């Protein structure tokens, strides 16, 4: 896009929006150049803050008119560079669209705008004794729109599933600037393709989400929180496999290794024990079942070699521990300048193998890798503690990362369990898909966004943008 076109587009945006809804000054747009991912930066031409669906549609139409890329962003907490702007793009930031529009206690649904903070949805549900289970670690900051666009997971995924399982309907603005409603309040609905599901997890590459109809469930009446310490990571992994094999599905089975424990304790000071591996386990539901499951899990942990199993003293302590766990990724930044978080996920029966492989890889490439994650989901977060300015070391990081991804796929796993592909993992995506399924993926993008204007360069490594258009 030429400079003249760009300035004409900005003039038109200025005419469309109020002064505080448009940022173009380099100092104002600099902090919209990154998300929570290390080492990825971009510079947009402008950042806009629409207040409603109509404004989003009008902005998308203007971008189409001037053939300009659009990058949608919530609060920028993503972990794959999904909202890092491409050069000269327009960033549509949804933070001003932050209203809860309706709570339907008859159908147990909630209609919200995309800029609502994830945690506020659960808090608003709690007022009606209802529950919104998905709880990504960034839930205090992340927006629901970003969660839907990335199909975010969280600590309760094991029992309750992920964001997709709680989306009944979506309003989306498609690449041509038209507004579509997909899905609805019916529990059963098999009319046509489930288009709503195509947009969930599409990372802003197929359309912009402007309203979300959320499914809520009754709030669990009781909860029990356990902490188990282990002399080795393998024993913690064995415990998880044994709990699942015993057909217990607790809501949370989280795991931290020694490095992570130390960093988290440094920050949160909640009295985490000093050990090689720690399991944070939570079961919720009917009080009788909760008591039974907690006892069974404790017994299994001991049998698998736990040195100590303790219970949270009260609700406050349980929340403290969960909050401490949620800080793990950021707390790891205390050790080295650059923190690169991965998201490798394997079937749960392969956990021990995966954990051992990560340990061996760190040794082989002479790197510091801390591991934590949602062990109950088989979703690990091996985290490279490194320094982006040390090019030699970064080469080893690249090699180790590839080795881990290759092994993950070999075990029948996936390169990303919950963070999305974005920019960070797009080059690994073809390894996981075969040629045919990767082409199918590209075809869907091509048919919904033929001019590749919506978040171009994300998910796909190829430049799909046609040379001539119109």
């Amino acid at each position, binding site marked *: 896009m030429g400079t003249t076109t760009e300035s004409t587009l900005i003039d038109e945006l200025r005419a469309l929006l109020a002064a505080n809804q448009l940022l173009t000054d380099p100092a104002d747009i600099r902090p919209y150049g*990154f998300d929570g991912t290390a080492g990825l930066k971009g510079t947009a031409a402008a950042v806009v803050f629409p207040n409603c669906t109509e404004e989003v549609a009008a902005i998308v139409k203007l971008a189409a008119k001037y053939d300009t890329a659009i990058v949608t962003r919530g609060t*920028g907490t993503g972990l794959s560079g999904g909202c890092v702007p491409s050069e000269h793009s327009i960033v549509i930031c949804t933070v001003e669209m932050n209203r809860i529009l309706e709570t339907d206690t008859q159908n147990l649904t909630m209609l919200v705008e995309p800029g609502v903070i994830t945690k506020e949805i659960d808090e608003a549900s709690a007022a009606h004794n209802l529950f919104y289970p998905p709880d990504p670690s960034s839930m205090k900051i992340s927006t629901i729109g970003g969660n839907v666009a990335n199909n975010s997971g969280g600590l309760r995924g094991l029992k309750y599933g992920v964001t997709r399982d709680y989306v009944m309907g979506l309003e989306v603005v498609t690449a041509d600037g038209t507004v579509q409603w997909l899905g609805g309040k019916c529990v059963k609905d098999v009319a046509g393709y489930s288009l709503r599901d195509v947009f969930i997890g599409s990372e802003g590459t197929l359309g912009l989400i402007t309203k979300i109809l959320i499914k809520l469930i009754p709030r669990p009446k009781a909860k029990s929180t356990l902490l188990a310490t282990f002399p080795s990571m393998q024993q913690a992994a064995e415990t998880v496999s044994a709990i699942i094999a015993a057909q217990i599905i607790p809501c949370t089975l989280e795991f931290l290794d020694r490095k992570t424990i130390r*960093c988290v304790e440094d920050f949160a000071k909640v009295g985490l024990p000093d050990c090689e591996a720690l399991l944070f386990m939570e079961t919720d539901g009917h009080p009788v079942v909760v008591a039974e499951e907690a006892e069974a899990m404790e017994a299994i942990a001991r049998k698998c070699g736990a040195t100590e199993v303790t219970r949270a003293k009260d609700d406050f302590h349980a929340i403290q521990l969960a909050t401490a766990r949620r800080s793990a990724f950021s707390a790891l930044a205390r050790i080295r300048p650059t923190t690169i978080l991965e998201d490798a996920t394997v079937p749960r029966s392969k956990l021990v193998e995966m954990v051992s492989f990560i340990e061996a890889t760190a040794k082989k490439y002479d790197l510091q890798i801390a591991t934590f994650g949602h062990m109950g989901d088989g979703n690990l977060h091996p985290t490279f503690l490194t320094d982006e300015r040390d090019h030699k070391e970064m080469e080893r990081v690249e090699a180790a990362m590839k080795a881990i991804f290759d092994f993950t796929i070999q075990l029948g796993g996936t390169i990303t369990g919950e963070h999305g592909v974005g920019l960070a993992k797009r080059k690994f995506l073809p390894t996981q898909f075969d040629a045919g399924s990767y082409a199918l993926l590209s075809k869907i993008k091509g048919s919904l966004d033929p001019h590749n204007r919506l978040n171009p360069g994300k998910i796909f490594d190829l430049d799909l943008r046609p040379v001539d258009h119109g």
Partner: protein
Amino acid sequence: MDKPKKLHLETMDYSVVQPCMHCGMCLPTCPTYVETKRERNSPRGRIAWMRAIADGEAEVDKPFADEIYDCLGCLACVTACPAGVDYAQLFEAARADVEEHDAAGPGQRVFWRWLAVKTIFMHPRLLRLVGRGLYAYQASGLQSLVRKSGLLRLLPKRLADLEPQAPDICKRFSHQLIRPVESPTEMERRLQPMTRTPESEAGSQTHSTDADSTAKARRSGTHPTAEAGRSGTHPTAEAGRSAYRVGLLTGCVQDLAFSDINRDTADVLLHNNCTVITPAVQPCCGSLHAHNGELELAKKLARQQINLFKPETLDAIISNAGGCGSHLKTYGHLLAEDPAYAERGKEWDRKLKDIHEWLVEIDFTPPTASPGDVEPITYHESCHLCHGQKIRLQPRKILDAIPNLTRVELKESDWCCGSAGIYNITRPETSAKLLDRKLEHIEATGSTTIATSNPGCHLQIQNGLKKAGKTAIVRHPISLLAEAYRPQPKA
């Protein structure tokens, strides 16, 4: 202005600016971001800007200066940051760069900065003289005359708005209420209700007695614990109720507007077996200077404090103002490059204690009476006490130790009230919004007393309550404790 120096942001260790991984955990705790929802006004946005300057990608210019002065410096982001980014250090370096490179631009702020930061708050006697003048203005009835006459309308708007915010100055300042050395044996007398005896003003006659000579005089007596303190093993309650030797910082605003809180602090220390050393004339701690880009002046004041108090002769140096304490605990860092003071600075930091922190550490004696009609009460946390010094439970513990006192938790108790040093003067609009938010939460508690431990917060909330026509009052937790210690008049 001296010739432009190399930027602090460029020369400081890169490991200070680098750990921010922009995860966003700071966003919901930042009052300015929550207000505008614009990343530029967020901690990670400001740090990204600082990093761009450190990397030579951006300049220290007027927009940067505006942004760095829009930041309250409340340090809520520091509490929220799992990565442990030292925002306080970044913030001070950024403001120093702005000042040393004249980036904030000219205007009346130059005069006000010169008057306040470089002149009045550099000279404690001058500050007291100004305080005297203000007291005369307020006490003589001139203030109400001026207010009625409408003369204030002749002043520039901002200055006229400030006049009602000026603190009510105390009749007597700290040195007229606290003698340079007071020991627990004299406590009985001190426990009399707050009517001043002629002797209590005798302190003003003994200016020349500084901490050093008095310390020598005292050491001829028996002060075994001071030795224990020096050898590094801090005397604790386990060693029994032994005496401690502590210095008392009287502050600047605290000295003029709240000298009674300083007296209460001394009383509480005496009651807990501490000998209290209070030099009559004390320099400003330098917090105002460091937060406003004058690092060299801040260093100068730090050296003066260390020379005056001689930390090696004391078990602890006590601050009762959250904002001062937070800065006072960084002398070691501030003077790290100064060979003559680096070690003494570290010792100073080790011994510098907030009053609540110290009382809990020495296992203070719980009072047996209640301080009268103050409940229900709520507690507002000074930013620099809770975020800067991480002292959160101790003030609550002290309030909860007072018999028959019902404390109600304040929603967002750790959210800035908008005082933020001189922020209420430099950014009155944002400050007013934060004050309204605070008052709304206070109202919801139904409290008639608000306890807080920083003169800035004290004045800000007190002014807000007055303006809103509320009858609730603001007290320092230590004043409530002191009152509970004092013998109650028989009903």
